[in-house]
């Protein structure tokens, strides 16, 4: 008997009393009608609690805000699908710091390690837990680019914010590689004292964009 056949036979034998479980009750909150302004306020509160820096801006302010957040970075990487208009600010245009990661022209891990920051968009955000989901589509890029650089600047369109996790999951394509981010890298392993920043990006700047 193969290991698989044997394990399945053991399970079947273990369940010979044919337990009939009760139906799964789903009485928990599945939806919410929180107004948009409150959703933004809740998400900002949660992200700041994780020690992320948050800007809430109008769409026309976005390029300048991005330029400001990336000002200190010696270099930064963007995924190939990022909206060019976001990078239109004069301070960013052609200043030689930008590196583009694209399928077929990916940056090596060493290149990424030497890159100061990364700019990505995001797929969906959950206000109640302060969670931003990246799904690897062209505006967010492959997982490594938002991991290795020490500083992550992440754009959150207001239309992608929901209050509850059960509202967010239907918006996720589960077959894509997903990264859920709730604040910068952190550890609580020494005396349960939270320290922000270990192996992932130590700095997380979130820009919430109204009208987007």
């Amino acid at each position, binding site marked *: 008997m193969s*290991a698989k056949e044997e394990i399945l*036979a053991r399970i079947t034998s*273990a369940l010979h009393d044919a*337990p009939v*479980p009760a139906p799964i009750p789903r009485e928990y909150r599945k939806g919410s009608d929180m107004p948009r302004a409150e959703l933004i306020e809740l998400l900002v509160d949660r992200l700041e609690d994780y020690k992320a820096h948050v800007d809430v801006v109008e769409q026309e302010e976005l390029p300048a805000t991005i330029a400001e957040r990336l000002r200190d970075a010696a270099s930064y990487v963007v995924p190939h699908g990022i909206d060019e208009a976001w990078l239109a600010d004069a301070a960013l245009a052609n200043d030689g710091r930008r590196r583009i990661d694209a399928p077929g022209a990916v940056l090596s891990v*060493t290149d990424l390690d030497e890159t100061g920051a990364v700019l990505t968009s995001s797929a969906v955000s959950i206000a109640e837990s302060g969670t931003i989901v990246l799904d690897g589509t062209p505006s967010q890029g492959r997982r490594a680019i938002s991991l290795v650089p020490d500083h992550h600047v992440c754009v959150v369109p207001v239309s992608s914010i929901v209050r509850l996790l059960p509202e967010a999951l239907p918006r996720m394509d589960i077959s894509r590689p997903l990264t859920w981010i709730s604040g910068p890298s*952190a550890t609580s392993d020494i*005396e349960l004292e939270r320290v922000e920043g270990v*192996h*992932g990006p130590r700095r997380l700047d979130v820009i919430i964009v109204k009208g987007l």
Partner: protein
Amino acid sequence: MSNVFMGMPTLPVFGMGNLHIEEPFPAAAHRELGNTQMRANLRHATHTIRDKRLKVVAELPDWEELRDAGSATKNHVMANLPALLEEFEKNFTARGGTIHWARDAHEANKIVADLIREQGTTEVVKVKSMATQEIGLNEYLEERGISAFETDLAELIVQLGHDKPSHILVPAIHKNRTEVRDIFLKEMPNVDPDLTDEPRKLAMAARAHLRRKFLSAKVAVSGANFALADSGTLAVVESEGNGRMCLTLPETLITVMGIEKLLPGKEDLEVFMQLLPRSSTGERMNPYTSLWTGVTEGDGPQNVHLILLDNGRTAALADKYGRTALNCIRCSACMNVCPVYERTGGHAYGSTYPGPIGAILSPLLTGIKSEENSSLPYASSLCGACYDACPVKINIPEILVHLRGEDVDSKRGAKKLPSQMDLMMKGASWAFSSGKHLALLEKGLPLGKLAAGRDKKIKALPGIAAGWTQSRDMLAPPTQSFRDWWKKDHTPVAPTHKQEN
């Protein structure tokens, strides 16, 4: 193969590896109780985390409804495990992943070692994982010339300190910052000799130490928190980003997961990803969760393997009163509220799984007849705090009592001589059968004084009663019994009748 049960039930096949304790719990606990530094560290840590947990749980108006859904989902998974496993395998394989099945720890270890050798490397990076701890993977690999580097900060502290984990979530919970600094100074190459004990500085030392390993590793080994049957998706929940490093950068990813970790589908994540972070670290959400479905071209490892591990899980499943222990999502809320764990620490439980869940899970995986683990179900005051804290409502006290019964039953008839307990019960039966017998026995009370010290306390009772004085002193009995006192000091008076009108 068919999942319809036909024929004789197979005998339960128990697990092996780091599940057996080396000495019975009472002896180990007695030694650990003397470690006052460990007790102080542990008290601070468990109280911090339980307060945080209560605060974030109170924020959710539907916490009890989430627990009900989580508990029912897990019961559903266990009842339908063969079909869900087959469904998961089909979907994971269709997306370019490879599934292996392992009957026990040895088989799982061998599969991992062979996969690593195929890649021509002798170094792997590891994400903290209970399953690989349970099967003793690091030790197995080391014996075969493969170095496994733990990348979670707490696991790194334990590994560099040549120590054992003592908590399932915060394995170095028994160490304070000064002890951690001392370990780093002694064991970490190229560490700054002026390293202070500030947690931030220590975390940065770990970052520098592991950075090159992450960027150059060819193979990573992980566990998994959840597996979704209907899509073939795996999930790892973590905080530091070390998990993301291991799951994303190497070319080969090998995951070891217990067969009980399945969930039917995506919708179930909405329950468990609310229950788990709040119960474990007392956070609204852990900093990073990674989900991957087989192989994605151009993103992450292109050579992806999953080992589905039994190692006693089917034996636990066969215990119809104990099987809900498999519903455990390894959040560790039970140990953070347990008065016994808080005092003895995790090492006293011997197994990879300490605390209340360990006291039921370890004997279920190894069998209660496993000599050493039979003492674990007694490592509890049955106060029920663990049941209240459990996000999937595992009735730990009930299972503890059930396993105590199993232990007593398994030993019944094996004894030839009457035990001390039998003799004591026989004696008590005689003493309480008549007032005269009791009076006779009470004449011996003054003898108690001899057993007590000058402080009138008895510090060690003999035989089976020694358990009582192991962790407490007993007052010496009075020199005189109540009956004697009554006789001597109480002059009988004729009853008086009050006049009432």
